[in-house]
């Protein structure tokens, strides 16, 4: 075994339990400090982890807030199926709102061209949903290791009326004390797994024997090659004439919309192999997010505009 591989094996299956204690503490603070919290559920592994943590935090009681899904209409069918199963399994309330409705109401405009995606549009639907239900805290699965602008995100991140994030206005967070006091119109985005890395999430999923959507594991799929990445073929993808779909074995490392999540070639059929792949991966997690490639400061700009 090479040194790199043996180093990899040393790390496998070691989830720092301290992280779970910290996240459960945050979940309980949300339930205690806010009147109408919600858990934003995307169907990805990070939000599935959040649901698990919420379940543990209030056991033997039920999760005391709803799961909210902003459905772009471009989700993988496997994600939707999983979402419905999980809500039933945990007994949590599920609220779904559709980007298509925002488009039909003229509040959001469908993008055109071959890179068209609804990823940016979901901000409109999200802000409307927050207003509709008067949510004062929205729990999300963002991690600080994902991206540079995320590295400075607080655990309780205060947003103004327009959902905007201002790096300079963020409250200092000292020790583990969380200040969730807000004025009318403001709301807070809460990130309980801020301090987890991608590897921590996978090790947790493994140790907890959690179910995850099947698209995280290797499967046969029709894809096209574009910009050096594999894109899932679907009705939502605007293909050019020379982009011919072909079938290959892939899996998804992150799960967003079908139009903005690239697949990776993989034969990983179980979680151990996935963890090995991550540890030896040559491409970072967000590198497979087509939306971030638009510009170096893409994420920070989206956040200023109210993106999750």
């Amino acid at each position, binding site marked *: 075994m090479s040194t*790199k591989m043996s*180093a990899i094996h*040393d*790390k496998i299956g*070691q*989830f*720092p339990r*301290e*992280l*779970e*204690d*910290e996240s*459960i*503490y945050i979940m*309980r*603070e949300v*339930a*205690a400090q806010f009147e109408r919290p919600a858990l934003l559920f995307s169907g990805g592994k990070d939000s599935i982890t959040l649901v698990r943590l919420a*379940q*543990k*935090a*209030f*056991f*033997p*009681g*039920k999760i005391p807030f709803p799961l909210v899904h902003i459905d772009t209409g471009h989700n993988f069918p496997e994600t939707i199926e999983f979402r419905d199963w999980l809500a039933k399994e945990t007994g949590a309330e599920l609220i779904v709102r559709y980007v298509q409705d925002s488009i039909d109401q003229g509040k959001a405009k469908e993008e055109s061209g071959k890179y068209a995606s609804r990823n940016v549009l979901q901000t409109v639907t999200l802000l409307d949903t927050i207003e509709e239900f008067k949510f004062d805290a929205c729990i999300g699965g963002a991690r*600080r*290791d994902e991206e*540079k*602008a995320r*590295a*400075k995100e607080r655990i309780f991140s205060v947003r103004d009326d327009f959902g905007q994030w201002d*790096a*300079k206005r*963020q*409250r*200092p*967070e*000292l*020790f*583990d*004390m969380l*200040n969730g*006091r*807000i*004025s009318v119109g403001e709301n807070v985005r809460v990130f309980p797994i*801020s*301090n987890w*890395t991608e*590897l*921590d999430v996978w090790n947790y999923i493994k140790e907890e024997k959690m179910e995850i959507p099947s698209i995280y594991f290797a499967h046969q799929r029709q894809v096209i090659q574009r910009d050096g990445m594999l894109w899932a073929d679907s009705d939502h993808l605007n293909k050019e004439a020379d982009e011919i779909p072909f079938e290959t074995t892939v899996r998804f490392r992150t799960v967003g919309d079908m139009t903005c999540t690239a697949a990776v070639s993989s034969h990983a059929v179980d979680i151990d192999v996935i963890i090995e792949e991550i540890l030896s*991966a*040559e*491409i*970072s997690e967000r*590198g497979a997010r087509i939306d971030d490639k638009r510009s*170096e*400061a893409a994420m*920070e700009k989206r956040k200023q505009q109210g993106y999750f």
Partner: protein
Amino acid sequence: MDILRIATAGSVDDGKSTLIGRLLYETNSITKDKIEALESASKRKGLNFLDLSLLTDGLIAEREQGITIDVANIYFSTPTRKYIIADTPGHIEYTRNMVTGASNAKVSLILVDARQGIVEQTARHLSIASLLRIPKVIICVNKMDLVQYEESKFNEIQHKLSELVSKTTFQGQTVSYLPISSLFGQNITKKAVDMPWFNGNTLLGELETFEFAETLAQAPARFPVQFVVRPMTEAYHDYRGYAGKISSGTFKVGDEIRVLPTGQTSTIATIEKFENSLEQAIAGESIVMTLSNDIDISRGNSIVLASETKVPSLKDFSAHVCWLDHQALSPGKTYLLQHGIHVTKAKIIQITERLDVSQQTSETEVGQLNLNEIGKISLRAAQAISADKYAENPSNGSFILIDEFSNSTVGVGFVD
């Protein structure tokens, strides 16, 4: 696997970002696509080497100004440990960020430029590390390449540093000194080939071998109740569980406990973590506790062992504070005081001292405390708080002050 939290601090150009970038690079924590992005960004800047500082200089404003303006969290791991670095800016006006970043740290990493030696910031960082009772300080004398890796230069700086350290350090704190070059990777994870005269650890070696003995588990037992779990379902009809994270010490099933501030006593019936029942739980664990009899406990109450004769209860007390807000702290003002999860009103009675942390001096006639200043105050809480002295039990000895009107966190305090 444990987590070691590190706070880094340094002046504007002492190469802190490069040091962190180097640590990530040499522990294989950077993926290929990020290295490629780094290569092209370095080229755009006209550099013929990898500018590792670009890895951590995140925000747009920072890239424009070429400085770091907020606390950034950086993660890496080795087979031994998971590391979290709170990278905090070293500008004089950002003391608040430094205190914020250091508030969870077990290690304070301080950089000194080998050409300049000790600067005002060095003393400031050392003072803050002591104010926050950080058990380990590692001082890296960086840019040794620019002083030809001379041993005498390092010894001279170390000598002056240890004089300064003797004024700030407290019992139980260990301080080590390392000559390094972040730019050329000398003494970061690998022994410095250009400094054969240095026999100490590399920086990573220092971090990997640091044992932060679990003193927290031996500290007095403190359990702040965060949330009362009442399922009210058929299966759990009369269930009442007290959920929270143990802030210090150890609790065992069967322990006699006392609830603060009410003073009621009971016995621990169960300690639960999701579906598991535990015999005992220690500091840092998020648990649910059930008691043998039905007593009235609500969020913000604290559970301690009944055997403790002197229970913590403070109404009129003094504390050190670091002020975090543009609007100054002045006597007579009322704020919300949050100790752990317990919030009460508090009035500032007097500012008794202002500390000049870089000069190790203090003045006593103080009208107000401005942003980034550290001082000593006396205050009165509307309800007693169950806090310990910070120096004796740090995890139960700090609090924040919140402005009632802006809702901002405006100050952090350490109970004297």
